[in-house]
Protein backbone atom coordinates (compact mmCIF):
# COMPACT_ATOMS: atom_id res chain seq x y z
CA UNK A 1 0.00 0.00 0.00
CA UNK A 2 2.80 2.29 0.92
CA UNK A 3 4.30 1.81 -2.51
CA UNK A 4 1.11 2.86 -4.09
CA UNK A 5 0.92 5.96 -2.00
CA UNK A 6 4.45 6.86 -2.88
CA UNK A 7 3.69 6.28 -6.49
CA UNK A 8 0.77 8.59 -6.33
CA UNK A 9 2.86 11.18 -4.58
CA UNK A 10 5.50 11.00 -7.24
CA UNK A 11 3.09 11.16 -10.09
CA UNK A 12 0.13 13.19 -9.03
CA UNK A 13 -1.56 13.49 -12.40
CA UNK A 14 -0.34 11.02 -14.96
CA UNK A 15 -1.75 7.54 -14.41
CA UNK A 16 -4.93 8.76 -12.82
CA UNK A 17 -5.88 10.96 -15.70
CA UNK A 18 -8.09 8.43 -17.43
CA UNK A 19 -9.80 7.49 -14.23
CA UNK A 20 -10.36 11.08 -13.34
CA UNK A 21 -11.85 11.96 -16.61
CA UNK A 22 -14.10 8.94 -16.51
CA UNK A 23 -15.23 9.77 -13.02
CA UNK A 24 -15.83 13.33 -13.92
CA UNK A 25 -18.09 12.24 -16.71
CA UNK A 26 -19.76 9.59 -14.66
CA UNK A 27 -20.51 11.54 -11.52
CA UNK A 28 -23.38 13.64 -12.87
CA UNK A 29 -25.07 10.53 -14.16
CA UNK A 30 -24.64 8.73 -10.91
CA UNK A 31 -26.13 11.69 -9.12
CA UNK A 32 -29.00 11.78 -11.52
CA UNK A 33 -29.55 8.10 -10.94
CA UNK A 34 -29.47 8.65 -7.21
CA UNK A 35 -32.12 11.32 -7.49
CA UNK A 36 -34.15 9.04 -9.68
CA UNK A 37 -33.94 6.26 -7.11
CA UNK A 38 -35.19 8.58 -4.41
CA UNK A 39 -37.95 10.09 -6.46
CA UNK A 40 -39.05 6.87 -8.04
CA UNK A 41 -39.10 4.93 -4.80
CA UNK A 42 -42.87 4.78 -4.97
CA UNK A 43 -42.89 2.74 -8.12
CA UNK A 44 -39.70 0.76 -8.19
CA UNK A 45 -37.18 -0.65 -5.77
CA UNK A 46 -35.38 2.10 -4.02
CA UNK A 47 -36.21 5.08 -1.95
CA UNK A 48 -34.55 7.62 0.21
CA UNK A 49 -32.01 5.38 1.73
CA UNK A 50 -30.79 3.66 -1.39
CA UNK A 51 -30.84 6.86 -3.38
CA UNK A 52 -29.00 8.67 -0.64
CA UNK A 53 -26.31 6.04 -0.64
CA UNK A 54 -25.94 6.31 -4.41
CA UNK A 55 -25.66 10.08 -4.18
CA UNK A 56 -23.14 9.72 -1.42
CA UNK A 57 -21.22 7.22 -3.49
CA UNK A 58 -20.82 9.79 -6.25
CA UNK A 59 -18.99 12.13 -3.92
CA UNK A 60 -16.95 9.27 -2.54
CA UNK A 61 -15.99 8.40 -6.09
CA UNK A 62 -14.81 11.93 -6.61
CA UNK A 63 -12.75 11.76 -3.48
CA UNK A 64 -11.28 8.44 -4.57
CA UNK A 65 -10.41 9.50 -8.06
CA UNK A 66 -9.08 12.92 -7.16
CA UNK A 67 -8.46 13.62 -3.54
CA UNK A 68 -10.35 14.73 -0.54
CA UNK A 69 -9.81 18.40 -1.21
CA UNK A 70 -11.56 18.13 -4.55
CA UNK A 71 -14.59 16.50 -3.10
CA UNK A 72 -14.61 19.15 -0.43
CA UNK A 73 -14.83 21.73 -3.18
CA UNK A 74 -18.02 20.15 -4.41
CA UNK A 75 -19.54 19.93 -1.00
CA UNK A 76 -17.91 21.74 1.84
CA UNK A 77 -17.84 20.41 5.34
CA UNK A 78 -20.31 23.03 6.47
CA UNK A 79 -22.80 22.28 3.74
CA UNK A 80 -22.47 18.63 4.48
CA UNK A 81 -23.23 19.16 8.12
CA UNK A 82 -26.12 21.43 7.22
CA UNK A 83 -27.56 18.85 4.82
CA UNK A 84 -27.38 16.02 7.31
CA UNK A 85 -29.19 18.11 9.90
CA UNK A 86 -31.66 19.26 7.31
CA UNK A 87 -32.42 15.72 6.19
CA UNK A 88 -33.17 14.50 9.67
CA UNK A 89 -35.07 17.69 10.45
CA UNK A 90 -37.29 17.29 7.41
CA UNK A 91 -38.44 13.90 8.60
CA UNK A 92 -38.99 14.89 12.19
CA UNK A 93 -40.41 18.22 11.17
CA UNK A 94 -43.06 16.63 9.00
CA UNK A 95 -43.88 14.13 11.71
CA UNK A 96 -44.15 16.94 14.20
CA UNK A 97 -46.16 19.08 11.82
CA UNK A 98 -48.75 16.33 11.58
CA UNK A 99 -49.03 16.33 15.35
CA UNK A 100 -49.16 20.10 15.57
CA UNK A 101 -51.88 20.27 12.96
CA UNK A 102 -54.11 18.28 15.23
CA UNK A 103 -53.46 14.74 14.07
CA UNK A 104 -51.31 12.10 15.61
CA UNK A 105 -47.60 11.99 15.18
CA UNK A 106 -46.63 11.04 11.60
CA UNK A 107 -50.27 11.01 10.57
CA UNK A 108 -49.80 12.44 7.09
CA UNK A 109 -53.53 12.76 6.63
CA UNK A 110 -53.45 15.64 9.07
CA UNK A 111 -51.53 17.69 6.52
CA UNK A 112 -54.83 17.83 4.69
CA UNK A 113 -55.55 20.88 6.76
CA UNK A 114 -52.65 22.65 5.13
CA UNK A 115 -53.50 21.93 1.53
CA UNK A 116 -56.51 19.74 0.81
CA UNK A 117 -55.40 17.00 -1.55
CA UNK A 118 -57.13 13.98 -0.19
CA UNK A 119 -55.86 11.76 2.62
CA UNK A 120 -54.39 9.08 0.37
CA UNK A 121 -52.56 11.58 -1.73
CA UNK A 122 -51.15 13.16 1.34
CA UNK A 123 -49.95 9.80 2.55
CA UNK A 124 -48.19 9.36 -0.76
CA UNK A 125 -46.78 12.85 -0.72
CA UNK A 126 -45.80 12.57 2.91
CA UNK A 127 -43.85 9.43 2.21
CA UNK A 128 -42.16 11.22 -0.65
CA UNK A 129 -41.15 14.19 1.43
CA UNK A 130 -39.92 12.00 4.17
CA UNK A 131 -37.88 9.93 1.75
CA UNK A 132 -36.34 13.11 0.48
CA UNK A 133 -35.22 13.90 3.99
CA UNK A 134 -33.83 10.42 4.45
CA UNK A 135 -31.99 10.73 1.16
CA UNK A 136 -30.37 14.02 2.12
CA UNK A 137 -29.33 12.79 5.51
CA UNK A 138 -27.97 9.50 4.23
CA UNK A 139 -26.05 11.13 1.44
CA UNK A 140 -24.32 13.66 3.60
CA UNK A 141 -23.61 11.23 6.39
CA UNK A 142 -22.16 8.66 4.02
CA UNK A 143 -19.87 11.29 2.59
CA UNK A 144 -18.81 12.51 5.97
CA UNK A 145 -18.18 8.95 7.15
CA UNK A 146 -15.92 8.43 4.21
CA UNK A 147 -14.11 11.72 4.66
CA UNK A 148 -13.36 11.02 8.25
CA UNK A 149 -12.30 7.45 7.80
CA UNK A 150 -10.23 8.06 4.71
CA UNK A 151 -8.39 11.02 6.15
CA UNK A 152 -8.17 9.82 9.69
CA UNK A 153 -10.18 12.83 10.73
CA UNK A 154 -7.90 15.68 9.71
CA UNK A 155 -9.68 16.21 6.39
CA UNK A 156 -6.34 16.95 4.78
CA UNK A 157 -5.62 14.08 2.48
CA UNK A 158 -7.62 11.10 1.40
CA UNK A 159 -6.50 7.59 0.71
Amino acid at each position, binding site marked *: MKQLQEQVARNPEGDNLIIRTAVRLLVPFIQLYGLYVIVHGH*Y*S*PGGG*FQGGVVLGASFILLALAYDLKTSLRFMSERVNNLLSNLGALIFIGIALLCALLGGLFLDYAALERLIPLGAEEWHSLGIFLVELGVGLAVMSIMVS*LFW*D*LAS*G*GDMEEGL
Partner: protein
Amino acid sequence: MDQLLTEIVGKYNYWLYVVLMMIGFYAMIGKRNLVKKLLGMNIFQTAIILFYVSTGVKRGGQIPILDKHAALSHGVDASQIINPLPHVLMLTAIVVSVSVTGVALAILVRIYREYGTLEEDEILEKIRS
Protein backbone atom coordinates in the same frame (compact mmCIF):
# COMPACT_ATOMS: atom_id res chain seq x y z
CA MET B 1 -32.18 -40.13 7.97
CA ASP B 2 -34.57 -39.49 5.16
CA GLN B 3 -36.73 -37.46 7.43
CA LEU B 4 -33.80 -35.44 8.59
CA LEU B 5 -32.88 -34.76 5.00
CA THR B 6 -36.31 -33.50 4.11
CA GLU B 7 -36.25 -31.46 7.24
CA ILE B 8 -32.97 -29.90 6.21
CA VAL B 9 -34.05 -29.33 2.65
CA GLY B 10 -37.41 -27.95 3.70
CA LYS B 11 -35.74 -25.45 5.98
CA TYR B 12 -32.37 -25.05 4.34
CA ASN B 13 -32.64 -21.31 4.74
CA TYR B 14 -32.53 -21.68 8.49
CA TRP B 15 -29.55 -23.97 8.29
CA LEU B 16 -27.74 -21.50 6.11
CA TYR B 17 -28.51 -18.61 8.38
CA VAL B 18 -27.42 -20.51 11.47
CA VAL B 19 -24.14 -21.47 9.83
CA LEU B 20 -23.46 -17.88 8.82
CA MET B 21 -24.53 -16.66 12.21
CA MET B 22 -22.10 -19.05 13.86
CA ILE B 23 -19.26 -17.92 11.63
CA GLY B 24 -19.94 -14.31 12.48
CA PHE B 25 -20.47 -14.92 16.15
CA TYR B 26 -17.31 -16.94 16.41
CA ALA B 27 -15.34 -14.17 14.77
CA MET B 28 -16.81 -11.64 17.18
CA ILE B 29 -15.86 -13.45 20.33
CA GLY B 30 -13.01 -15.71 19.24
CA LYS B 31 -10.86 -13.60 16.95
CA ARG B 32 -8.21 -11.36 18.38
CA ASN B 33 -7.97 -8.92 15.52
CA LEU B 34 -10.35 -6.04 15.94
CA VAL B 35 -11.13 -5.69 12.23
CA LYS B 36 -11.93 -9.39 12.12
CA LYS B 37 -14.34 -8.91 14.97
CA LEU B 38 -16.01 -6.18 13.04
CA LEU B 39 -16.23 -8.26 9.88
CA GLY B 40 -17.70 -11.02 12.01
CA MET B 41 -20.27 -8.58 13.29
CA ASN B 42 -21.27 -7.72 9.75
CA ILE B 43 -21.57 -11.37 8.84
CA PHE B 44 -23.67 -11.94 11.92
CA GLN B 45 -25.98 -9.13 10.94
CA THR B 46 -26.32 -10.26 7.34
CA ALA B 47 -27.16 -13.70 8.68
CA ILE B 48 -29.97 -12.23 10.70
CA ILE B 49 -31.15 -10.27 7.70
CA LEU B 50 -31.13 -13.46 5.68
CA PHE B 51 -33.19 -15.09 8.36
CA TYR B 52 -35.78 -12.36 8.36
CA VAL B 53 -35.94 -12.08 4.59
CA SER B 54 -36.40 -15.78 4.21
CA THR B 55 -39.38 -15.72 6.55
CA GLY B 56 -41.24 -13.49 4.12
CA VAL B 57 -40.77 -15.69 1.09
CA LYS B 58 -43.80 -17.20 -0.55
CA ARG B 59 -43.27 -19.97 -3.04
CA GLY B 60 -44.16 -18.54 -6.44
CA GLY B 61 -44.87 -15.14 -4.98
CA GLN B 62 -44.32 -11.86 -6.78
CA ILE B 63 -42.14 -9.04 -5.60
CA PRO B 64 -44.01 -6.57 -3.44
CA ILE B 65 -44.35 -3.82 -6.03
CA LEU B 66 -47.84 -3.68 -7.38
CA ASP B 67 -49.55 -2.11 -10.29
CA LYS B 68 -51.30 0.87 -8.81
CA HIS B 69 -54.32 0.95 -11.05
CA ALA B 70 -54.88 -2.78 -11.06
CA ALA B 71 -54.59 -2.84 -7.31
CA LEU B 72 -57.00 0.03 -6.85
CA SER B 73 -59.60 -1.35 -9.17
CA HIS B 74 -59.37 -5.10 -8.60
CA GLY B 75 -57.83 -5.51 -5.19
CA VAL B 76 -54.85 -7.70 -4.40
CA ASP B 77 -54.47 -11.39 -3.74
CA ALA B 78 -52.27 -11.43 -0.71
CA SER B 79 -51.07 -14.98 -1.16
CA GLN B 80 -49.46 -14.05 -4.46
CA ILE B 81 -47.32 -11.27 -3.12
CA ILE B 82 -44.17 -11.78 -1.12
CA ASN B 83 -44.47 -10.51 2.45
CA PRO B 84 -42.98 -6.99 2.47
CA LEU B 85 -42.85 -6.51 6.21
CA PRO B 86 -39.55 -8.33 6.85
CA HIS B 87 -38.02 -6.33 4.03
CA VAL B 88 -38.98 -3.13 5.72
CA LEU B 89 -37.55 -4.28 8.99
CA MET B 90 -34.36 -5.38 7.35
CA LEU B 91 -33.84 -2.11 5.55
CA THR B 92 -33.73 -0.54 8.96
CA ALA B 93 -31.45 -3.27 10.23
CA ILE B 94 -29.03 -2.71 7.37
CA VAL B 95 -28.88 0.96 8.17
CA VAL B 96 -28.21 0.20 11.78
CA SER B 97 -25.54 -2.24 10.80
CA VAL B 98 -23.71 0.19 8.57
CA SER B 99 -23.97 2.90 11.20
CA VAL B 100 -22.44 0.71 13.84
CA THR B 101 -19.75 -0.35 11.41
CA GLY B 102 -18.93 3.25 10.64
CA VAL B 103 -18.61 4.21 14.28
CA ALA B 104 -16.60 1.12 15.05
CA LEU B 105 -14.19 1.80 12.19
CA ALA B 106 -13.68 5.35 13.38
CA ILE B 107 -12.87 4.03 16.81
CA LEU B 108 -10.50 1.50 15.25
CA VAL B 109 -8.57 4.32 13.65
CA ARG B 110 -8.31 6.00 17.03
CA ILE B 111 -7.15 2.77 18.65
CA TYR B 112 -4.52 2.29 15.98
CA ARG B 113 -3.31 5.81 16.49
CA GLU B 114 -2.98 5.13 20.18
CA TYR B 115 -1.37 1.70 20.17
CA GLY B 116 -0.08 1.15 16.65
CA THR B 117 -1.70 -2.24 16.34
CA LEU B 118 -5.08 -3.81 15.96
CA GLU B 119 -4.34 -7.08 17.70
CA GLU B 120 -6.15 -7.35 20.99
CA ASP B 121 -3.36 -9.20 22.79
CA GLU B 122 -0.71 -6.76 21.62
CA ILE B 123 -2.81 -3.84 22.75
CA LEU B 124 -3.34 -5.39 26.16
CA GLU B 125 0.38 -5.96 26.44
CA LYS B 126 1.04 -2.34 25.62
CA ILE B 127 -1.43 -1.22 28.22
CA ARG B 128 0.19 -3.42 30.82
CA SER B 129 3.68 -2.24 30.16
